[in-house]
């Protein structure tokens, strides 16, 4: 027999506080009771539904003639809970009502809606230093952690997890560090007398789950030798907790910024080595160099260079480059025939493969400040010829390296081979011999692998990592045997879409302010990292001491006076879209917003500069790194998640499939490249018909003339570069 048939009118509606009448929903009562019960450690959904139906029954009886108010329903819930012997749940429920009332009060006072609700909270987020990201925390995941770390069975683990989460809510925290979470879990275990579980949790800095994650990584890119990975994980945790200032560390974990290379805090981000320094100066930790007077035969030189690269690579996280290698080493290769050159080139490549990310810089015309200098002969003494006189050999070596690399690729060795970066200036674009090499390089790019062209622009000051690849602005540096080259100590990346999300759609001023605030944090991170690097180089205990000239011998890798810091940006296109509703390619206004942000960050770099700390603005184009940001942004901005693309565009480039033709793309990216000097424009030709090398050459020339773009990558689209 139904209630209606028995004379009790079923409750169908309820009046809200603002007077609106809405449908009565018994499930909502059950939810509220269940959440209140959970917060005190009980978790019986079925019971909650039973109690909710009792509440409904009482209401039907009491409000047969009218529509109950929300307060009436809530009063009834309390009464039922107390009368059915669920006092603790009732208490939690009362507490919940009080807090809701306070929140409502606050909401009416403030202009915007109050986000946080007691029983319907947004996800609590745990900043996990070991994984270098913020993870949403719920009862199940925390219980799993406790189960694994403290050997707790599922039931008690779940109860402890819920108690910890409710403690966090009481404290009003929706964001918590991994270590605080650990401490709260410990306190809860102790309070419940679970001493064995507490002891089982052991070392807190890298918990059991963390170590097991290190040993059995879920993400393939985190694979590697377990002991090395564990070491890196610990170093990263140390760097996040003890090297970076607190605010910087939490911005890093949140994904507002990303400080690179934290798992190797004593290593430099990137280094450009002078091949002269390698050839002539003793290198710390590497025996068998060429002292003054020793004749460097090409083969011996290649072996030595490989040894040095491998040694130095241990202290570099990102990349090692050898600018203008073909000119600086030309005296060694002078007089060799084409076949011999090819063979020597192959040895050079083979020796340099496996030393991490190595880039061989090949100048296609004599570098301006080097050309008129007397070239150092095989014995190290300046000979009768200038570097400019050795142009034919230098171009021959470049050709031989291209051919040898092509052959290496055919053998499937591509990943391990050093990359070739061609530096070209206006002279090279008019010189027939240089043009032949460029044509070959273009063909190589389209056929096999991406090739990088660096456009040598004298009128642009070189800062940041641009120094690694661009024109040799300082000939002394590259031929100075006392300094290995240029070091980029560290890089920190600003997640621009996050800045836009924090400011909200339509708030372009706020977006710029947020980007500046993130840049401040990133710069503070860079400064901290540079200090740490310097410390590592300052005394005999430091791992970089020998490379800083500490032993008084050989060339210096770390040169605090000349190291540069790199402030990089990623996702400008998506940030502009999130801020003003249009992409960079959509309108002039959108482009101008992008330019304003970049100028603001450039200014930040300028004003942060001081002796020994020289930050410059760069583009972060490492796909793996940039793809870390969207998932983190989704966690913190769930309501914006549907609008967020799966991937952000690298650096300041337009979306790869932006609806613009090549000319407009280059115009736009060219304007953005003025601020961000390391930004790379990619020409990718994945399908037929492919352009002829002459057409690509025309494109190179135009790009040279019409823009200030500094780097161009040409490829067939099968591989991402960074």
């Amino acid at each position, binding site marked *: 027999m139904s209630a209606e048939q028995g004379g009790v009118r079923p409750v169908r509606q309820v009046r809200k506080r603002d007077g609106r009448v809405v449908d009565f929903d018994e499930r909502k009562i059950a939810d509220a009771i269940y959440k209140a019960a959970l917060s005190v450690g009980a978790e019986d959904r079925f019971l909650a539904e039973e109690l909710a139906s009792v509440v409904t029954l009482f209401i039907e009886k009491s409000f047969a003639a009218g529509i109950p108010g929300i307060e009436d329903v809530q009063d009834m819930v309390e009464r039922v809970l107390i009368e059915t012997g669920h006092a603790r749940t009732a208490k939690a429920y009362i507490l919940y009502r009080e807090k809701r009332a306070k929140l409502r009060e606050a909401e009416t006072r403030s202009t915007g809606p109050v986000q946080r609700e007691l029983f319907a909270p947004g996800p609590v987020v745990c900043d996990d230093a070991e994984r270098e990201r913020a993870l949403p925390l719920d009862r199940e995941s925390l219980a799993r952690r406790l189960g694994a770390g403290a050997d707790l069975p599922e039931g008690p683990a779940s109860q402890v997890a819920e108690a910890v989460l409710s403690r966090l809510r009481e404290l009003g925290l929706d964001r918590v560090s991994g270590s605080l979470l650990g401490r709260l879990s410990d306190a809860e275990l102790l309070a419940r007398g679970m001493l064995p579980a507490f002891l089982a949790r052991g070392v807190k800095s890298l918990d059991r789950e963390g170590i097991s994650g290190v040993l059995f990584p879920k993400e393939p890119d985190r694979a590697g030798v377990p002991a090395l990975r564990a070491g890196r994980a610990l170093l990263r945790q140390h760097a996040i907790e003890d090297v970076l200032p607190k605010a910087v560390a939490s911005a890093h974990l949140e994904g507002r910024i990303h400080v690179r290379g934290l798992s190797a805090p004593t290593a430099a981000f990137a280094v450009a080595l002078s091949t002269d320094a390698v050839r002539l100066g003793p290198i710390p930790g590497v025996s068998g160099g060429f002292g003054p007077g020793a004749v460097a035969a090409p083969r011996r030189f290649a072996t030595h260079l490989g040894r040095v690269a491998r040694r130095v690579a241990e202290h570099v996280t990102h990349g090692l480059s050898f600018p203008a290698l073909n000119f600086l080493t030309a005296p060694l290769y002078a007089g060799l025939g084409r076949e011999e050159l090819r063979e020597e080139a192959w040895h050079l490549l083979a020796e340099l493969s496996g030393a991490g990310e190595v880039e061989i810089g090949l100048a296609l015309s004599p570098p301006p400040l080097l050309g008129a200098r007397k070239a150092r002969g095989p014995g190290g003494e300046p000979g009768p010829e200038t570097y400019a006189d050795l142009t034919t050999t230098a171009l021959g070596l470049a050709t031989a390296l291209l051919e040898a690399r092509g052959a290496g690729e055919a053998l499937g060795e591509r990943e391990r081979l050093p990359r070739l970066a061609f530096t070209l200036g206006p002279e090279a674009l008019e010189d027939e011999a240089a043009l032949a090499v460029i044509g070959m390089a273009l*063909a190589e790019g389209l*056929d096999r692998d991406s090739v990088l062209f660096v456009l040598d622009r004298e009128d642009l000051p070189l800062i940041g990592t641009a120094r690694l690849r661009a024109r040799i602005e300082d000939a002394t540096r590259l031929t100075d045997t006392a300094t290995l080259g240029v070091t980029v100590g560290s890089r920190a990346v600003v997640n621009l879409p996050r800045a836009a999300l924090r400011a909200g759609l339509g708030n372009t001023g706020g977006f710029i302010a947020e980007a500046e605030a993130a840049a401040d944090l990133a710069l503070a991170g860079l400064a901290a990292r540079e200090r740490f690097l310097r410390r590592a180089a300052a005394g005999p205990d430091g791992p970089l001491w020998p490379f800083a000239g500490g032993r008084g011998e050989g060339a210096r890798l770390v040169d605090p006076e000349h190291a540069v810091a790199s402030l990089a940006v990623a996702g400008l296109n998506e940030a502009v879209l999130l801020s003003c509703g249009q992409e960079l390619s959509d309108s002039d206004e959108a482009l101008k917003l992008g330019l304003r942000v970049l100028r603001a960050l450039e200014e930040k770099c300028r004003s942060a500069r001081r002796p020994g700390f020289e930050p410059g603005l760069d583009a972060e184009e490492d796909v793996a790194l940039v793809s870390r940001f969207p998932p983190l942004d989704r966690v913190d901005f769930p309501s914006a998640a549907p609008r967020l693309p799966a991937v952000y565009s690298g650096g300041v480039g337009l979306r790869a499939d932006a609806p613009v*033709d090549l*000319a*407009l793309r280059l115009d736009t990216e060219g304007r953005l490249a003025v601020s961000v000097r390391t930004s790379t424009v990619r020409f990718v030709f994945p399908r037929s*018909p492919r352009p002829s090398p002459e057409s690509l050459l025309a494109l190179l020339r135009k790009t040279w003339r019409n823009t200030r773009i500094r780097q161009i990558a040409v490829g067939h689209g099968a591989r991402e570069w960074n």
Partner: protein
Amino acid sequence: MELKLPPIRGLLETSLTHWPGRLSSVVFLGGCTLRCPTCPVPHLIGWGREQGAIPFDSILDALYRRRRWIEGVVVKGGEPFAHPDLPELLGLLADLGFPVRVDSNGTRPAEMEAAIAAQLVDCVTVDLKAPLDGRYLRAAGADVALRDLFRSIEALLAGDVDYEFRTAVRAGGPAEADVLAIARTIRGARRWVLRAAGGRDSGVTGLTRLAREAGRFVREVRVEGRGMIGSFRQAVAVEKDGRNDS
């Protein structure tokens, strides 16, 4: 007075492939004198004005925005020379300072010669679909006066304007003997482009061999298509070999 221009049915703002060695914009006109069964642009061959046209102003605007990049405009069809108003369009493009190339099927020699004489074009290409006999009529899908084609070829061979003959080689297209027959017809030509069409991946290797053969008759043979870059060096070699024989 309103401008009378041929109907512009399409615009490709930037192309790296239509005029090798240049960044070009491509203007597509509607209407063709032939009905090739393998036509890649069947939507362009009809003459009807009702098919609509892009206003020249917007073409002008697009070209102006790209003026720093574009090194030439390619006018394609259909058959551009079949439009009596073509000189007007070519004149406007020339006034804007763009070098102009017209891609023709060679069936309108008089109009072509007039445009060349008036210096309205910087380069003309003629697409040769088959040897100029019954095979051509089949390939063109229309009754064509073959003497018009011979006249177009002669005009280019004898004249000063830059030109290029083009032949698409596809499965079902001209056989090897056909290609050599075409080569003989254009003996002494400055440049002939053999295009691997219809996604013939492996075709380029065969084409390169064919190009070497054809190199006995013309000064430069180029091979275009998938994997073209790989054979570019070979094509250069052909160019050197070919010169001796011409």
